């Protein structure tokens, strides 16, 4: 396992971790709103969130490319600020976060659904304002679901390919485990591809192990 392969593995794991951190606040917030604060148009929001799950990843990648490309709706603002997104590590994190978010929201939703509203009500009568109730009661009681969601999101991020190829390309600085395996198999470098496959399996085991430890210890 040479230096470049090591680097790709470290990079992918790091980016997936970063993507998980990035998707946690909006994911938790969305899950909470969908469970506790039904609003008109929530079906639209639910559908939008599920899109990356249902669409082929390449299609999601295309949408992201249009949005964040230099002329895109969102991309043009970044461009004015001098921030490059497409073909950089930021695009890797973006693709991973977008693809992992739906899974996180689903698991977190079920986590919040299982929190007995009674506890939240009592906490309120004890003088806790809604934010405090959320942080001290709802979130801790839903932590199992949220953690499961984070693990799912992380795994999805690590395995992400289609959207990543589209917006991050396969440049030396943005190649992930998945896209590297793709390039190596496409150019006949089967040996390197196999090494990365083994690395991917190892990382998957490690992630599973860590997540089991975290949930057993009872966060």
């Amino acid at each position, binding site marked *: 396992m040479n230096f470049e392969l090591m680097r790709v593995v470290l990079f992918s794991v790091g980016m997936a971790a970063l993507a998980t951190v990035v998707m946690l606040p909006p994911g938790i917030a969305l899950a909470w709103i969908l469970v506790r604060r039904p609003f008109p148009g929530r079906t639209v929001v639910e559908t939008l969130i599920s899109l990356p799950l249902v669409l082929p990843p390449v299609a999601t990648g295309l949408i992201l490319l249009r949005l964040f490309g230099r002329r895109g709706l969102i991309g043009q603002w970044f461009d004015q600020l001098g921030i490059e997104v497409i073909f950089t590590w930021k695009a890797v994190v973006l693709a991973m976060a977008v693809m992992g978010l739906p899974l996180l929201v689903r698991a977190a939703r079920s986590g919040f659904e299982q929190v007995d509203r009674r506890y939240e*009500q009592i906490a*309120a*009568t*004890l*003088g*806790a304002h809604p934010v405090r109730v959320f942080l001290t009661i709802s979130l801790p009681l839903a932590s199992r679901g949220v953690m499961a969601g984070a693990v799912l999101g992380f795994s999805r991020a690590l395995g992400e390919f289609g959207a990543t190829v589209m917006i991050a390309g396969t440049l030396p600085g943005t190649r992930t485990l998945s896209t590297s395996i793709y390039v190596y198999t496409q150019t006949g470098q089967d040996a390197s591809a196999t090494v990365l496959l083994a690395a991917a399996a190892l990382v998957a085991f490690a992630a599973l192990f860590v997540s089991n430890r975290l949930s057993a210890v009872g966060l």
Partner: protein
Amino acid sequence: MSVMAGVPIVLDFTVHQGSFTLEIHQRFEAQAVALFGPSGAGKTTVLESIAGLRRPTAGVIKVGGHVLFNSADNLDLQPHARGIGYVPQDVALFPHMSVRKNIFYGTGCGASMSPDTVLRLLEISPLVDRSVTGLSGGERQRVAIARALMSGPELLLLDEPLAAVEQSLRKRILPYIERVREELRTPLIYVSHSPDEVRQIADRVITLEEGRVVESSTEHCRPTEGRSTADRRRLP
């Protein structure tokens, strides 16, 4: 026993819920009020409305001069702003916190209670560092009462506090509630369907049946010096 001036309370509201309607129009001052009646009469609905966990269809709720709810002014104070302590029937101790964390969860705007007093009164000091699981029904009840008290409420609501306690222990819990009433001077509204409990605790009994108050009297109550006549009103 000295006469204690109670906290003025106005319960003047209606709740429409599906086919059930609750109507209550009561003004009183009391130290300990019992809400009495068969199940389904609407007792819990009254408590939830006072605590802010349920929004009445129309009316006014005032406790101690503070308006908690007034549909005419579109005023509906959030539960955390009401200063009402609530111990529900299912006790609802926070399962992910220790006894200590449960008890000290509240941040009160009411009179500050001395923790030592409350713990001593309810005899739960030896329990504080235990986890919430594994407590007996009686212990859970006392912890829940302590928790509600520590948030410094203006009014304490107890919903069938003895329902979850083993029969043999019920007689032992009541004294704690009496202590709360007498030593801490916290006004309370106590829901029960047991006449014995009611008689022991309350200076006023409001009887509910199918969503309507059928009787509100101080007659059946504990004898207190200084009161000469029973104050009794029968409603149609």
